[in-house]
């Protein structure tokens, strides 16, 4: 499977090589104009960490810690949106879900356990291999594919739910990315995004704090200039028929050493957006 996809992927890499120095102004226009969301250096960085995804004490420890808060936002809004039974063992049986930038499958696997028919895509081949290996080991059926969001959108695929968790801050062209996300959502379906806000506080906490002082995540994981504000995401989705249904912050509490949903969107936040039924 990867062999067939690779050539076109390489072409995309070249087109996206020019990384914007700033999200505003000319360079931002350039990003929005690109026909690929793939940022080669980002892809290479995550590909190198592919075998670390499922080590709860390893490089992706912060994502493991973040998971319960993130998943409860997803579950709560999807239960309400689709009117499903909160006590069911597999409340989302019969619904399809696409996890964009699935990495090692940290969100794909929980979604599969909850009943979704899950497709996971990632621009880094080694991630897909690691994700597939892990799903096989734990006995979950997930359709993992080495692809970018726009590949699926161009092929006209649609899903009941599209997840884009901690991925938009790593793509080369957020405008195209949001357009692809919108196209991938079936009418009456919804999308959930998680990312980091572009604020002074997020610079202090997500870059200076998490990467330099606490060393929770490797230095250079994030480029603050690529972070988007909730309003920017809303603006990117609206023209394509998606409206924001909910916004929540995900904040760290040092007292309980855990993450929880909150009203503070200044650093990590999540967006629930729905598409009108036809």
């Amino acid at each position: 499977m990867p062999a067939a996809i690779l050539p076109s992927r390489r072409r995309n890499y070249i087109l996206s090589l020019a990384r914007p120095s700033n999200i505003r102004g000319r360079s931002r226009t350039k990003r929005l104009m690109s026909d690929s969301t793939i940022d080669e250096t980002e892809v290479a960085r995550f590909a190198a960490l592919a075998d670390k995804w499922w080590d709860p004490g390893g490089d992706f420890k912060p994502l493991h810690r973040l998971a319960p808060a993130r998943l409860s936002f997803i579950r709560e809004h999807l239960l309400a949106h689709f009117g499903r039974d909160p006590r069911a063992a597999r409340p989302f049986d019969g619904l399809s879900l696409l996890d964009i930038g699935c990495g090692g499958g940290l969100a794909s696997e929980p979604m599969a356990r909850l009943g979704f028919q899950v497709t996971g895509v990632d621009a880094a081949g080694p991630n897909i291999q690691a994700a597939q290996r892990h799903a096989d080991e734990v006995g979950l059926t997930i359709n993992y594919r080495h692809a970018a969001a726009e590949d699926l959108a161009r092929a006209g695929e649609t899903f009941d739910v599209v997840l884009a968790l901690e991925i938009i801050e790593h793509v080369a062209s957020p405008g195209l990315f949001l357009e692809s996300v919108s196209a991938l959502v079936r009418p009456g379906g919804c999308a959930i995004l998680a990312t980091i806000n572009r604020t002074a506080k997020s610079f202090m906490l997500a870059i200076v704090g998490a990467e330099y002082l606490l060393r929770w995540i490797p230095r250079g994981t994030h480029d603050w200039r690529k972070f988007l504000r909730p309003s920017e995401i809303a603006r990117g989705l609206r023209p394509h028929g998606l409206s924001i249904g909910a916004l929540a912050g995900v904040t760290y509490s040092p007292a309980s050493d855990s993450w929880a949903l909150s009203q503070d969107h200044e650093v990590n936040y999540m967006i629930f957006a729905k598409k009108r039924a036809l």
Partner: protein
Amino acid sequence: MAVVGGGLAGLTLGIACAGAGIKVAVIDREAPADMLALPFDGRSSAIAWGSRQVLEGIGVWELLRAEAQPILEIRVADQGSPLFLHYDHREVGDQPLGYIVENRVLRRALLERAAALPDLSHLAPLGVEAAEPGLSGTAVRLSDGQTIQAQLAVAADGRNSPLRKAAGIRTVEWAYPQAGIVCTARHEKPHRGVAVEHFLNSGPFAILPMTGNRSSIVWTERLETAKRMMALDGAGFTAELAKRFGDFLGEVALEGPRWSYPLSLLHAERYSADRLALLGDSAHAIHPIAGQGLNLGIRDVAALAELIVDDRRLGLDLGNPGLLGRYERRRRLDSVTLSAVTDGLNRLFSNSIEPIRTVRDLGLALVDRLPPVKRMLMRHAMGVLGDQPRLVRGEPL
């Protein structure tokens, strides 16, 4: 998930989780029929109000309700002293302070409920050789050569927990120079739901009301004396029993066999390891003075079941370290406090040095006259103090 050990705590956890739609294997060395036979376990347990809530919430209480004796009052008295502490359930609400249930009755109800749950498989009699954790699950190897792949293994295999030892979790333990003699006494007059705890010089002597004109006796005695008591013939033993029991319920007779258990305290350094959680006695075995051992185990169950069900509803792997860390934090304070309190109580009350006796009598009388302090102690004994899991609060999982 795999629960290793199908005793009271292990089965209760299995039922709580399977009732919420989680696939559970409960593995036990003993055949269920043997566990229900009288010589297996003649003890009764004090079920605190909070534990009753848990059993009710998982559909077990209705199966034993008729055989549970409510405790309406607790009288604590020091030997030969007129001062005593008196707990009446009406001081904290309408509910009884707790119940006395024979372990046999509890086991029968648990087995009956377990058999009705399609998501629970009770594998017994079968041994567990090892639980080998890996990144995607833990392999539980059974004595018949089978292997069960589970996300989480729970060691409910008792105070000598082989799984705990294999995981390299160390314990702090010490033995008391005492033994607990357990038997059932039949008496002439009804007990009216009153539990009595006499603090004798050799240790506490508890009379716990059972259904009918019967009381369960938990008699703490110095090791030497206990050995002597156990060697006595029926008539001799009954005479010793009656001497300590007193005559307030008329004539007293021994009913059925008697048992003797060495008393010791054990506390595990950690309650979890890689894809392993310790439950009940494998994590903490406390002195039975306050009748809180099983209640502590049931509170473990309520906390762990809630964490497991919540994480399963999020689709998470049940062996995730976050879950185990939260379990550790939620349970440690409760069990350390209780171990220290019961150990302290035992040390305080198991002697006859005059100044200590005077102080403890004054202490009891003082507590009796300070309603807020007393209510707090009662609520703790009832297992309803502090931030409690949903099952303890009487809410569904």
